[in-house]
C-alpha cells in the first residue's frame, strides 16, 4: 500500500532467530521501541512479526519483517531508520501497514504547550476546557503581525493535559499533536485536497 511520498517493500530475513522476547520487555528500558534517537525524520521503518515457536522438525526460527522506505526522504535527509522491532502482529501485511504508519518523511511542526488561564474565560468556555480529555480534537488559530500567511489555523488532538490550581487561579496547559482526524467536508465552503476535511 504505497503512499504518495514513499513506498515500502516486504522483506524476509533468513537464518536462526535471535529474538527479543515475544512477550513484554521492561518498559523502563524501551517504552516505545520504535522511537529512534531523533524522531524528526523517520524514513526507514522495520516491523517484524513474532515467529512461530520452534518444533522438533524446525528448531531454528526465522524473523520476518516488513520495511517501509520513504525514498524521497532518504534522498533529502539520509537514512533515518528504526531497529527491527518484533511486534505481536499476526501477518506481514499488518507489519507493513504499521511500518507505513510510522514513516515521518519530513519534520513536522505544530502549535503545542498551549496555556489557558481559566480566570479570564466565560463560564461556558471554562466548562468546555474542563470537559476536554486526552484524545479530544481542538482547533487553534493564531494571528501573526509579520508573517505570511498572517493567520494560521491548526487541527490538533490532545495527547496530554495539565492543571495548576491555587486558591486564586487555575492554569490549564494543553499538549497537542497534529490530528490524523478530520471534520466534515462542506460543499461550497471547503476546498478539495484539504487533508483535515472528509466525507465522514
Amino acid at each position, binding site marked *: 500500500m504505497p503512499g504518495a511520498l514513499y513506498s515500502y517493500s516486504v522483506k524476509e530475513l533468513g537464518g536462526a532467530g535471535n529474538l527479543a522476547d*515475544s*512477550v*513484554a*520487555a521492561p*518498559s523502563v528500558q524501551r*517504552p*516505545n*521501541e*520504535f*522511537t529512534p534517537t531523533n*524522531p*524528526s525524520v523517520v524514513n526507514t521503518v522495520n516491523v517484524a*512479526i513474532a515467529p512461530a515457536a520452534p518444533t522438533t522438525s524446525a528448531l531454528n526460527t526465522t524473523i520476518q519483517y516488513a520495511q517501509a522506505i520513504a525514498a524521497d526522504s532518504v534522498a533529502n535527509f539520509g537514512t533515518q531508520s528504526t531497529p527491527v*522491532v518484533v*511486534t*505481536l*502482529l*499476526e501477518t506481514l501485511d*499488518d507489519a507493513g501497514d*504499521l511500518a507505513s*504508519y*510510522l514513516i*515521518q518523511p519530513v*519534520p513536522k*511542526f*505544530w*502549535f*503545542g*504547550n*498551549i*496555556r*489557558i488561564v*481559566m480566570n*479570564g474565560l466565560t463560564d461556558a468556555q*471554562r466548562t468546555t*476546557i*474542563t*470537559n476536554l480529555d*486526552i484524545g479530544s*480534537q481542538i*482547533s*487553534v*488559530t*493564531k*494571528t501573526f503581525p509579520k508573517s505570511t500567511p498572517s493567520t494560521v489555523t491548526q487541527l490538533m488532538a*490532545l*495527547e*496530554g493535559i*495539565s*492543571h495548576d*490550581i*491555587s*486558591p486564586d*487561579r*487555575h492554569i490549564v496547559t494543553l*499538549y497537542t*499533536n497534529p490530528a490524523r*482526524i*478530520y*471534520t466534515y467536508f462542506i460543499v461550497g465552503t471547503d476546498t478539495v485536497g484539504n487533508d483535515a476535511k472528509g466525507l465522514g
Partner: protein
Amino acid sequence: MAVVVPNCGTYMVEMDYGATTNAFIVDDPVAGIIGSTTYLIEGSPLYVDVTSYVKSVSINRGRQNRYRDATGQPGSATIVLEDRDWYFSLVNTASPYYNSTQGRLGFELNTNVRISRNGTYLFTGIISGYNQSIEKPNRSLVTVTCSDKLFSLNNIKTPAFTPTVQYAGARINTVLTNAGLFTGTTDRDIDTGVAKLGTAPVDESASILEYLQRINNSEQGRFFIEAGGQFAFDQRLTGQYQAIEAVLADTGGTAIPFTEFDIVSN
C-alpha cells in the same frame, strides 16, 4: 467543603482514608441482606472532602509529544495541604482520619483520591507518596503525590495464557478481564484497534503495564486513564471523522483565548 476559586469555579479534592460506606454487615437487617445490590462485601470508599486545607494542586496526564514520548505513562497529581489542624499528621493519633484498627493514619499508599471542578473530574487516582514537613515553629505541610491506576498495573503480573488472533482492543479486554481489572460496566472505554495480533503466548513474567505497552507497540495508538478513572484505549488514527470540541484563537469573539504556546516539532 468545596472551595470556590474566584472566576474559575468550585473545586473539590477528596481523599479516601480507608473507611467504607455501604459495606455488607453480617446479621444486619438492612446491610446484611444477601443479594443486595446496595450493600457490597468490601463496600465503597468513603471519601472525605479536604479542599479547605489545600494550598495547591498540580495535575499532569498523558504525554507531551507522541513522536518522542511513550503512551501509557501513569498520570500524576500533587496536592499540597496546609495542615493547620494537624489532621493529616502521621503522628497524631487523635486525627479524625487516624485508623485505630491499623494503628496509623488512614491516608496511605493506594487509597483513593479524586479532584473535580464543578462536579467534573480532573483527576482520579490513588496515593503513591505521602510526605509531611514541619516548619518552625509548628507549621505542618503535607505533600500528597498521586498516580492514576496505570501505576498499579506495573505491579500486577499477567496470568499466563495463549491468545487467539485478536484485534488490539479485544486483546486488551482479554488481559484486563483475565487479571480482574476494570471489571465494572463503565470502567473501560476501548476502541476496536487496527492491529491484528497473533498467538504468541503470554507468560507470567510480564506486568500488565508492560504487556499493554507491547500491545500498543503493535498498534501505535494510546492508552491512558481518563479523568474520571476509566481505562481508555484509542486505536491508531488513519483518518476518521471527529468533532472539534474546543475552538481556541487569539482573535476574540467566542473563541477561547490562550496566553502563550510553543511551536513544537517532532
